[in-house]
């Protein structure tokens, strides 16, 4: 029976668990419940990916109403792959959160944290799996509201302004998407994405549809923090509790990137977006500016979480660059980087959270001498940092390899060089932290109170991610296969849509 509902389960499980978690209140059991729920969702998303890899596309008609009349969940390799990253990260972060939030969130709000986390997971899963443009908006709002909550749970007052800014920008983004979806609906009379694709007649290019598309792309760009619409991200990730930063940085923006890919490739035709409207040029330029500007900003920050946040903006630049190359390899590079970046940023933010747990600060000065005091944490930070830089045998190298290959495929030598030059900037901002940890003497106040390693419950998920960083950097069969299947499927989709149009006619 579960097989039949496989597509719906990753959304439903956290969705149902959230209200239960809320009632359970503050207890040790709440944590266990939330974590095991998330693990269950993760388990089913593994199955879902396996099913998608073997069967191709899974369609699940909610309410038993066939699409386009009812809402459809549409699972293919692409979203199953991203979903796997999201649910895995969620589980690991929840394991990590038990001790981490003790220091960062008031005790009375712990159950709210778990509830919001599960809601966020449910929202992100919904965004990924749904095949309906308006349903996407609804789940976008579920995840966004949960995210605002999570960000504002920290004890630093600046998290409030960060959350407010995030809320305003996020709502503007969501409303833009709403406008765009409305325009598409106005011209086609349907909301189902596949149906939309078959009904948008690109050759009779309509100004309304083009505008709708532009609004959707801008709205999603706000959500995924594409430069220059990224202003909400650095403060939000900096002042949020560490567990939240780890989860959001590794999942939330990635899901938005996927949504962008999905709209561009499955709803609007690729040729239309890229060849007629030259969206690829705009995206490419923005992505490259994002990589350099944000990396540079990251270099001059003193708060390590801000450094990582700006680094995230830069890494999103890489993902967008991959998709703007308009090739199977480029798209594959984006997908692989979505997955890999989740692994690296998760580990990095967890390590920084561990430092906050013991030292009580994430300023770069606080990292001095930690290489000796917290060897495991700093080793995790170092390996994940090397991964961000793109050192061989880590996942970062794999992403960069595909991205540069994709650029070179089309003889974009300059872009290939810029991508690699961008990772040099990563050397600097990661190197600063590592140097402080290993080669600088601790400050006087820190030297006095003996700093110990963090509890094993925090170390375990961190190291699971670190090992995943290495494992998937060596054995790339899973990521490559899934990403390749995903991107090839997305490129074939245009043909599929046209054949379907004929059937309907």
């Amino acid at each position, binding site marked *: 029976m579960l097989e039949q509902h496989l597509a719906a389960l990753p959304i439903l499980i956290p969705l149902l668990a959230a209200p239960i978690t809320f009632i359970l209140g503050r207890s040790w059991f709440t944590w266990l419940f939330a974590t095991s729920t998330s693990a269950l969702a993760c388990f089913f998303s593994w199955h879902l990916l396996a099913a998608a890899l073997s069967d191709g596309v899974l369609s699940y*008609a909610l309410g038993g109403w066939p699409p386009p009349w009812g809402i459809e969940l549409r699972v293919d390799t692409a979203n199953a792959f991203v979903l796997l990253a999201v649910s895995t990260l969620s589980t690991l972060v929840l394991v990590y959160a038990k001790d981490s939030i003790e220091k960062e969130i008031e005790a009375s709000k712990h159950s709210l944290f778990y509830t919001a986390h599960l809601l966020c997971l449910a929202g992100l899963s919904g965004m990924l799996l749904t095949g309906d443009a308006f349903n996407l908006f609804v789940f976008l709002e579920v995840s966004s509201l949960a995210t605002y909550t999570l960000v504002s749970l920290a004890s630093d007052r600046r998290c409030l302004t960060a959350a407010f800014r995030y809320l305003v920008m996020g709502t503007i983004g969501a409303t833009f998407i709403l*406008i765009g979806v409305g325009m598409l609906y106005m011209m086609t009379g349907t909301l189902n994405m596949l149906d939309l694709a078959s009904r948008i007649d690109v050759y009779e290019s309509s100004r309304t549809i083009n505008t709708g598309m532009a609004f959707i792309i801008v709205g999603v760009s706000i959500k995924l923090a594409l430069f220059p619409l990224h202003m909400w991200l650095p403060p939000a990730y900096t002042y949020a509790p560490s567990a939240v930063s780890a989860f959001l940085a590794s999942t939330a923006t990635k899901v938005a990137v996927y949504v962008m890919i999905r709209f561009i490739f499955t709803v609007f035709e690729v040729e239309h977006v890229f060849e007629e409207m030259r969206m690829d040029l705009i995206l490419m330029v923005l992505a490259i500016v994002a990589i350099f500007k944000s990396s540079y900003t990251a270099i001059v920050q003193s708060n390590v979480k801000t450094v990582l946040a700006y680094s995230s903006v830069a890494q999103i630049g890489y993902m967008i660059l991959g998709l703007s190359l308009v090739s199977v390899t480029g798209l594959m590079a984006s997908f692989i980087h979505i997955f890999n970046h989740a692994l690296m940023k998760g580990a990095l933010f967890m390590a920084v959270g561990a430092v906050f747990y013991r030292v009580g600060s994430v300023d770069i000065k606080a990292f001095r001498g930690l290489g000796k005091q917290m060897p495991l944490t700093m080793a995790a930070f170092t390996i994940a940092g090397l991964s961000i830089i793109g050192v061989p045998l880590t996942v970062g190298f794999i992403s960069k390899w595909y991205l540069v290959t994709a650029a070179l495929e089309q003889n974009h030598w300059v872009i290939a060089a810029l991508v690699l030059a961008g990772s040099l900037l990563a050397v600097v901002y990661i190197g600063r932290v590592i140097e402080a940890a290993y080669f600088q003497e601790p400050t006087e106040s820190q030297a006095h109170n003996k700093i110990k390693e963090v509890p094993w419950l925090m170390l375990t998920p961190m190291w699971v991610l670190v090992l995943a960083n290495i494992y998937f950097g060596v054995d790339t069969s899973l990521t490559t296969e899934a990403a390749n299947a995903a991107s090839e499927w997305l490129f074939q989709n245009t043909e599929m849509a046209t054949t379907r149009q004929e059937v309907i006619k």
Partner: protein
Amino acid sequence: MAELINLVLLAMLALTALRIIFLKDLFAVIMLFGIFSFLSALIFINLDAVDVAFTEASVGAGISTVLMLGTLALTGRKEKANSHSSFLPLVVVCITGAALIYGTLDMPDFGDPDNPVHQHVAPRYIEESPKEVGLPNMVTSVLASYRGFDTLGEVVVVFAALIAVLSLLSIRKETEQDASESGLKSHHVLHVVAKLVIPLIILFALYVQFHGDFGPGGGFQAGVIAAAALILYALVFGLPNAFAVIGAKFLYCMASAGVLLYASVGLFSMYKGGNFLDYNKIAAEPLAGQHYGIIIIELGVGITVFAVMLSIFYAFSSQTARSNIK
């Protein structure tokens, strides 16, 4: 005639919006926003969207305005002079507006029945839903059955809002001596009228809840109206008395229960062998199944919306009460 009303209302709407931009008195801004909401509700009625109008009037103009006023009580009603330049926002807005205007150029004519929007999916809702779902109100059919998953998401959004507000503002019971301060104690007329009206409002809420299948209304509107009844109670008799009627803990359970009730219908249909939220499978007869399903999920929606709206009001007003004591 309808067109003319429409034009006039739209013009009034535009005037209100422009006035909001330039007013510095935030109280007036919020009042104007309430007017804006009511005007748009009128336009919605004029455009045949009765359910939407109902919701906009109760949710947009009602609850939103109340919450804004509650915030204003804590933050002060004057906006300070704006120091930074408004040039950049103006440029952004102009570009966005120009893009939108560009987009309208190919838009189909207003109200033309041949528009694509009325062609593809909608006809089935209009023609088949009375037979397939069995309800005269197509909006309810689509909302609760065809797009029931959206509605579940919507309930979850409301629930998420509760989580967010609770994580920001904690609800605390006031002690006894504070209770005497709050409420409109000396307003005897109000007391009497409130006692008279509150049962009526709740009755009306129940009517809206269960009549939503046949006329405009449904769980959202009902939940908000019922919440409004208790908000009135809390305003007139003081927050502590309202707590005595419905405590915060109980509301939390209600909010969760509503979501779970909704989802359990889906799970039950899964158990019966259908897809999630497939009401046809709930009962032996598909139409009966649709009927049960819709009634139960609307109830779930109503419960959650009621509980969440009231909790949010509690959260805001206990902040106000605390700051008053200070």
